[in-house]
C-alpha cells in the first residue's frame, strides 16, 4: 500500500471548525418553537413511589407539560429499556423503565419530566413538583449486599446477586498444591466516571408532513439508539433518524441507551414541538453510568524462578441498580487477567452484585484496569518476595512472539476463543524500559534520596481485546462535483474518526484528503451501524473504508479506461484524477467519471458497469484484535504530605499498523491522563445509604494540566493478520495499565519504609496513614 495518506501524521480535518467555535453540539442546534426539559429525579437511593402532585408546577407560566410514567406512550410506559447484551449467566436481567414505576432504585433515577419555554422555567417547575416517596432500606456496599439476608436493592428480589460465573482453564488446585510460593492480595478499585466535558444531550423533533422523528443525541451509538427507541415508541426504523452531531467526549457512558433518549422523543411527539434536554453536571454525576468498583481476592502460585504456575481467586463486581449492558464488564475483567503472560492454570469466580447506585457499564478500559491491577500487583509481590527485579519477573513470564497466535484457554466476550492474533510483548517491554531509562533508575533514585526526594518507578503490561464486532459499515461514493462522499455508522466523540477514515479512503481511491466529505453518526447516511465502544472503529470502520474504497477504485479504473480508450492497467488514480499512461486522452477527473456513471436517460449502460460510482462494505471481524503495551511510571512522593506527582511517563504501545501517529499518540496520552485520574484522584463516593457524596467537579477530581506529564511514546507495530489494514484498537490502552504502574511506582518510592498498597485511587491520606503505621514518621520527624 502506498503511504501517501495512510500512516502519515496528518493534522485533523475536524479541527478548524471546532477551533473557530463553529462546532455543532446538540445544545448548539436551534429549532423554531423549541421547548426545554428538566427531569425530576429521585433523592432517595431506594424508595416506593407513592404518587405525584404536579398542580403547582403546571400552573407556572411557561410550563407546557409534566409527564410521569403514566403519560408515556405504549409500550414505553411499562417496558423496561432493552438489555443490550443478554447472557445466560445473568440471573437478574433487570433494566429500568424510561420513567420510574412503583419503585426507585438509585439517587437520580428519573421520575418525571417537565417541559417549559426555557430550562430556567423547567427547573423552577421541577422544584415545585411534589413527589411522595416511602423510603426503603438502601444497599450501598456490594460486599454486604452479596451476603444472604440483608435488604434487597429491589424490593421484589430475594437476592442481590445478579450473576455468578467462573472462568477457568488448567488445574489450579494442582498448581497451587505443588507451588514453591503462593502469594495472595486483596485489592479494590474505586467507582469513577467517564466525565466527558460535554454532558449528555437529547433533542427530538417530529416533522408531521414527512412523519419523521429526528433525534439528536450526544451518543456513541446512534444506530443502536434508534433501534431501541423504535421498539419503545412503536415506530418503524425508517421513520426515525438519530444523529450524533459533534459529541464532546464519550469514554463509554455515552454508549448506553438512556431513559432520556426515550422520554424526550415521547415528549416531542406528545407536544408537537421540538424538545431539548441538556444534562447538567450534577445529573451527570447521578445518572450517567460509572465504572471500576470491584473487590478482588486473588492468589498467584509461582516456582522458585518466579515462573507463574497458576492464578485463582474471586472478584466482586458492584453493578449498581440495573444491568443495561448485562455482565459484559466483569466478564471482560475476568478474561483480561492472564494478559501477556503464560499462566498455565487460571480460575476466577465472579460475583455480580446489585446495589442502589447508578449502574456500572464500560468506562474507558472496561474492566481491564482492574484486571491488570490484580495481575500486576501480584507480579510485583512475587518480585518483592523473591527479591528479583520486577521487569525480570515479567520477562520470564511473557508470551514469546514465536508463540503467536496464542490461545489463552478462555472464551472472550466476543464469544470466540481468546486467541491473541499477534504481538511481541518482550520487545514492547524492552522498548518501554529503554525509553524510560529503567536501567539507571536506581542511581537516579539514590541521588534523589540523598537530596531528600522520594522517587520511584513502576511498570505494568496489558493485553486488550479491541475491535469487537459485529461490524461497521462504510459507503464510499464519488460525486459529480469530484468530491468523495463517505458515510459510516461509526461515530466520533473526539477520536478523529473523520480524519482516519478519510486517510484510508483517500489512499484507496486516489483522491485528496480535502475532497472527502464525511458523514458520521447519522442513521440516515447508512442503513446499518453500531458505533463507538471497545476501541473498535479503526478495525471495523477502517477495514470497511478500505474495502469500499478499493471497490470504488476498481470502478473508477474501469470507467476511466473506457473513457480514455486504454486498458485498465494503464490508469493511475491520484488527487482525484484518472490519468492514462498512454493514448491520446491524458486524463479525466473523478467528477466527470461520476457523471458518466450516471448514464444517459433511456440508454443502457455498457455491459459490466453498475449505477454510479459507489460501494458499501460491512467488514465483520472474525474475533477481537488484541493490542498490547507496557507502561512505565516515575513518581515523586512527598512522604510528609502523601502528595504524589507523576514526573515521567513512558508507553510502548502496539496497536498494529498506525493509521495516523498524531491521533494514536493523542489517544494514548489522553488515556494515560484518565489512568492517572483513576490511580490518584477520581473517586465517586457514596455514604452508607447509597447517597452520592461527590457530585461536583470540586469533589470529584479530574486530572488537571499540572497532574499529567507529557508521555514518551514508542509504537511497536506488529501487524494484525486478521484484518486488511493490519490494525488493532488504540482508544483505551492508555488507561488500562496506568493505575497498576503508578501504584507500583509509589511503593517503589517509599521502599525505605517497606509499605504496600492495594487500592485506587491511592489518596495522600492513605499513603500517610500507611507510612504512619509503618513507623515512618518516627524517623522522618526526627530527621
Amino acid at each position: 500500500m502506498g503511504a501517501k495518506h495512510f500512516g502519515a501524521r496528518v493534522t485533523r480535518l475536524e479541527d478548524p471548525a471546532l477551533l473557530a467555535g463553529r462546532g455543532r453540539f446538540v445544545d448548539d442546534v436551534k429549532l423554531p418553537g423549541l421547548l426545554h426539559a428538566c427531569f425530576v429525579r429521585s433523592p432517595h437511593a431506594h424508595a416506593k413511589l407513592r404518587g405525584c402532585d404536579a398542580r403547582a408546577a403546571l400552573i407556572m407560566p411557561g410550563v407546557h407539560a409534566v409527564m410521569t410514567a403514566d403519560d408515556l406512550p405504549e409500550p414505553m410506559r411499562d417496558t423496561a429499556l432493552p438489555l443490550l447484551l443478554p447472557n445466560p449467566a445473568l440471573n437478574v436481567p433487570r433494566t429500568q423503565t424510561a420513567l420510574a414505576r412503583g419503585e426507585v432504585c438509585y439517587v437520580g433515577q428519573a421520575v418525571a419530566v417537565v417541559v417549559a419555554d426555557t430550562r430556567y422555567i423547567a427547573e423552577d417547575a421541577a422544584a415545585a413538583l411534589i413527589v411522595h416517596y416511602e423510603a426503603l432500606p438502601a444497599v450501598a456496599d456490594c460486599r454486604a449486599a452479596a451476603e444472604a439476608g440483608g435488604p434487597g436493592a429491589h424490593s421484589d428480589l430475594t437476592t442481590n446477586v445478579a450473576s455468578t460465573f467462573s472462568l477457568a482453564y488448567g488445574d489450579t488446585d494442582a498448581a497451587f498444591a505443588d507451588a514453591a510460593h503462593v502469594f495472595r492480595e486483596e485489592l479494590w478499585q474505586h467507582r469513577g466516571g467517564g466525565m466527558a466535558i460535554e454532558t449528555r444531550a437529547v433533542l427530538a423533533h417530529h416533522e408531521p408532513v414527512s412523519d419523521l422523528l429526528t433525534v439528536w443525541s450526544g451518543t456513541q451509538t446512534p444506530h443502536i439508539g434508534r433501534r431501541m427507541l423504535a421498539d419503545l415508541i412503536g415506530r418503524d426504523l425508517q421513520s426515525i433518524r438519530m444523529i450524533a452531531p459533534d459529541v464532546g467526549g464519550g469514554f463509554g457512558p455515552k454508549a448506553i441507551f438512556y431513559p432520556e433518549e426515550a422520554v424526550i422523543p415521547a415528549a416531542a411527539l406528545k407536544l408537537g414541538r421540538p424538545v431539548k434536554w441538556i444534562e447538567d453536571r450534577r445529573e451527570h454525576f447521578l445518572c450517567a453510568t460509572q465504572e471500576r468498583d470491584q473487590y478482588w481476592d486473588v492468589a498467584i502460585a509461582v516456582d522458585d524462578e518466579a515462573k507463574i504456575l497458576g492464578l485463582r481467586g474471586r472478584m466482586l463486581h458492584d453493578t449498581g441498580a440495573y444491568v443495561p449492558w448485562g455482565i459484559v464488564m466483569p466478564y471482560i475483567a475476568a478474561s483480561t487477567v492472564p494478559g501477556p503472560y503464560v499462566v498455565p492454570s487460571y480460575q476466577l469466580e465472579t460475583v455480580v452484585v446489585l446495589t442502589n447506585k447508578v449502574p456500572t457499564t464500560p468506562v474507558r478500559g472496561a474492566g481491564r484496569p482492574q484486571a491488570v491491577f490484580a495481575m500486576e500487583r501480584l507480579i510485583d509481590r512475587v518480585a518483592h518476595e523473591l527479591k528479583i527485579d520486577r521487569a525480570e519477573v515479567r520477562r520470564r513470564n511473557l508470551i514469546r512472539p514465536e508463540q503467536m497466535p496464542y490461545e489463552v484457554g478462555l472464551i472472550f466476550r466476543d464469544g470466540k476463543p481468546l486467541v491473541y492474533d499477534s504481538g511481541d510483548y518482550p520487545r514492547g517491554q524492552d522498548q518501554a524500559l529503554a525509553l524510560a531509562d529503567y536501567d539507571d533508575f536506581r542511581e537516579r533514585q539514590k541521588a534523589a534520596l540523598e537530596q531528600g526526594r522520594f522517587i520511584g518507578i513502576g511498570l505494568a503490561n496489558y493485553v486488550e481485546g479491541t475491535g469487537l464486532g459485529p461490524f461497521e459499515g462504510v459507503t464510499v461514493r464519488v460525486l459529480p462535483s469530484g468530491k468523495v462522499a463517505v458515510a459510516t455508522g461509526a461515530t466520533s466523540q473526539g477520536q478523529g474518526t473523520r480524519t482516519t477514515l478519510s486517510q484510508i479512503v483517500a489512499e484507496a481511491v486516489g483522491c485528496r484528503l480535502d475532497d472527502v466529505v464525511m458523514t458520521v453518526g447519522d442513521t440516515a447516511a447508512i442503513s446499518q451501524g453500531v458505533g463507538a465502544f471497545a476501541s473498535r472503529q479503526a478495525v471495523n470502520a477502517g477495514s470497511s473504508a478500505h474495502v469500499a474504497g478499493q471497490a470504488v477504485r476498481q470502478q473508477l479504473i474501469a470507467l476511466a479506461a473506457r473513457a480514455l480508450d486504454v486498458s485498465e492497467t494503464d490508469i493511475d488514480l491520484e488527487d482525484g484524477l484518472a490519468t492514462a499512461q498512454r493514448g491520446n486522452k491524458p486524463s479525466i477527473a473523478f467528477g466527470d467519471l461520476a457523471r458518466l456513471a450516471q448514464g444517459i436517460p433511456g440508454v443502457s449502460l455498457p455491459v459490466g458497469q453498475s449505477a454510479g460510482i459507489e460501494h458499501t462494505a460491512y467488514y465483520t471481524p472474525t474475533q477481537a484484535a488484541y493490542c498490547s503495551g507496557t507502561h512505565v511510571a516515575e513518581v515523586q512522593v512527598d512522604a510528609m504530605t502523601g502528595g504524589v506527582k507523576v514526573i515521567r511517563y513512558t508507553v510502548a504501545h502496539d496497536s498494529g499498523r498506525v493509521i495516523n501517529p498524531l491521533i494514536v499518540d493523542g489517544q494514548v496520552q489522553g488515556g494515560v491522563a484518565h489512568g492517572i485520574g483513576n490511580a490518584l484522584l477520581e473517586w465517586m463516593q457514596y455514604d452508607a445509604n447509597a447517597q452520592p457524596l461527590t457530585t461536583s467537579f470540586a469533589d470529584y477530581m479530574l486530572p488537571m494540566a499540572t497532574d499529567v506529564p507529557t508521555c514518551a511514546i514508542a509504537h511497536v507495530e506488529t501487524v494484525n493478520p486478521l484484518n486488511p489494514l493490519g490494525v488493532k484498537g488504540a482508544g483505551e490502552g492508555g488507561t488500562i495499565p496506568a493505575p497498576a504502574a503508578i501504584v507500583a511506582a509509589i511503593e517503589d518510592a517509599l521502599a525505605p519504609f517497606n509499605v504496600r498498597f492495594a487500592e485506587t485511587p491511592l489518596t495522600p491520606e492513605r499513603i500517610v496513614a500507611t507510612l504512619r503505621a509503618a513507623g515512618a514518621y518516627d524517623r522522618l520527624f526526627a530527621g
Partner: protein
Amino acid sequence: MGKQATRVIVNGKSHARVIDARLTLADFLRHELNLTGTHLGCEHGVCGACTVLVDGRTARSCLMFAVQANGCAVTTVEGLAPEGQLSVLQQAFIDNHGLQCGFCTPGMLMTLTELLRDTPAPSEQDVREALTGNLCRCTGYAGIVAAALDAAQRLRGALAKPGSP
C-alpha cells in the same frame, strides 16, 4: 421577575437586550446571541469550558450574570480571528493536536490568549498552571501545552520581525 435592560459589546459589536436578571452570561452568549462556541461543561466554575474575556480578562461565563456584563466588552472564541481565519494560537492547536472532541477547546483558547498576551515567553510550568482552570478529558493536555508554547514562539518571532503580520 427581574427583567433588566442590558447592553454588552461582544466581539466588537454592541448588543442591547432586555433579559432575565438570572440569565448567565454563558446562556446569554449562547442562546440570545447564538454565539455557541462558548460551552457549558459544569455550570459551577470548575471546568472552564465557558471561559471568555470580560474587559480583557478571563472569566467563567457560567459564574457571571449577563446583567453584570452591562457596559462591558466581551470576547468569545468567535472573536479570536476574523471569519474564515485562525489566530496563531488556533493554528498551533491544529499543528500540535491540541484538541480531540473540541468541547473544552474554546475555553482553553481564551485562557491561553490571555496568558500569551500577558506572558509572551511562558515556561511549560506557566502554561500548565494557567491551564489548571480548564479541564480536558480527551487530550491529557500534552498537545495543548505544546500548542501554547509553539504559539508563544511564533508570536515572539512575529514581534521580532517588524512589519510582519
